[in-house]
């Protein structure tokens, strides 16, 4: 029975080795196709340069100087793109040719991986090869064990996509982002940093044990200068507004919406003195102070909202109050004018017009 199990296991490892070898073959083909596509593109660019050269010569010969200038500026633009393109092409074509490993090498890699990490998990249906790390603790924060799952079918997309996922088996994510299960893992994708080149080289060369070893070593290392979420901010409360993590004692609860905020994203209502977040506060159009929605009342004239403090001086906003005051002043001035006029009229009426000769005295000579 034991022997049968052993044989079955060996068969599985050989089957898996074959699958991995096929995927490396696919990867090699993908690289060749990339070179082919770049060469085709290169020849198109060269042919465009020849066409431009011909057009330029014709334009110069015929004295079409504006046309020649247009062609010259087009060539100038293309040359910048061309030099960048040529550099990329050179890197791709000069890269060391990786020879495919032998089946026995891959088999040995898998046996070594089993020796280093315990059981390797092989899902024939999903075509994934996985190992599980020991529980990882960084700076006293337990992050639990992780599964490193390599998708065999995606190895051929190595240059454009990550063919593996990092799955937290007992997740203890950052409080401000549930997708971040490790300072360098977000959405099951590892940011490899300085491991990027050797990890890809290991996969290209079929060194699968080295690949898993480097991933595990990377997960066991913390780089405080460039994490998704710093371990200092791992636990605590996440500010609802800016997303920064604050400890329990430095968090403020908004009286209006009930969410929790950091000090920078909080203020207070200048009318009722309650703590409010910046989103729930509104500037009073009258005095410019921040107030909560509950402390805003409507201007009885224009309907704009103003704070209770300003409303105590009358339920008008400053503009409407100015208008009202101006209008009151105007009415007063008008009334005064009217009164003056009336008085003048009255005076005139009192000095009644007399018939001719009335009031005149005859003076005898």
């Amino acid at each position, binding site marked *: 029975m034991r022997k049968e199990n052993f044989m079955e296991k060996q068969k599985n490892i050989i089957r898996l080795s074959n699958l991995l070898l096929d995927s490396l073959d696919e990867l090699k083909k993908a690289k060749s196709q990339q070179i082919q596509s770049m060469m085709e593109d290169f020849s198109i660019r060269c042919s465009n340069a020849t066409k431009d050269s011909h057009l330029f010569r014709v334009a110069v010969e015929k004295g079409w100087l504006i046309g020649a200038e247009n062609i010259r500026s087009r060539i100038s633009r293309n040359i910048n793109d061309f030099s960048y393109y040529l550099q990329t092409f050179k890197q791709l074509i000069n890269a060391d040719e990786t020879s495919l490993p032998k089946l026995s090498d891959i088999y040995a890699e898998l046996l070594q991986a089993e020796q280093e990490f315990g059981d390797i998990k092989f899902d024939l249906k999903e075509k994934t090869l996985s190992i599980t790390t020991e529980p990882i603790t960084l700076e006293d924060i337990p992050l639990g064990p992780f599964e490193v799952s390599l998708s065999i079918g995606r190895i051929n997309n190595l240059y454009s996509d990550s063919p593996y996922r990092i799955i937290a088996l007992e997740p203890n994510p950052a409080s401000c982002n549930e997708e971040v299960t490790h300072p360098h893992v977000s959405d099951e994708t590892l940011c490899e940093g300085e491991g990027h080149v050797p990890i890809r080289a290991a996969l290209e060369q079929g060194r699968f044990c*080295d690949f898993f*070893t*480097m991933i595990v070593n990377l997960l*066991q290392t913390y780089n405080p200068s460039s994490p998704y979420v710093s371990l200092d901010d791992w636990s605590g409360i996440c500010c609802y507004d800016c997303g920064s993590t604050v400890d329990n004692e430095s968090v403020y609860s908004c009286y209006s919406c009930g969410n929790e905020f950091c000090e920078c994203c909080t203020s207070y209502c200048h009318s009722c003195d309650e703590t409010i977040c910046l989103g729930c506060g509104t500037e009073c159009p009258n005095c410019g102070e921040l107030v909560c929605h509950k402390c805003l009342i409507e201007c009885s004239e224009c309907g704009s909202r103003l704070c209770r403090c300003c409303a105590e001086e009358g339920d008008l906003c400053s503009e409407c109050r100015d208008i009202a005051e101006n209008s009151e002043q105007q009415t007063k001035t008008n009334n005064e004018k009217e009164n003056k006029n009336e008085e003048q009229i009255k005076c005139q009426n009192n000095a009644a017009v007399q018939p001719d000769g009335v009031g005149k005295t005859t003076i005898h000579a």
Partner: protein
Amino acid sequence: MRILFVNNDGGGFADYVTVTEGTTVEQFFTIKMEGRESSDYLIRVNRQPVPKEYVLQDGDRVTITPTKIEGARPVMV
């Protein structure tokens, strides 16, 4: 004699190198990884851990992998 040297530090290259007879793993590490601490690396010969006094043999496969690899968030351009 020639050995296969797989260096997972930096570029992650694998190549055959020539070493003199009687070179130990410790000496090989000192030559190839000048200025580095061996405690920061996982060293395997023919896929197995070996003592530092192990004398390298022709055709051996030596793998050196850093134990501390720093991840980094990608820079948005």
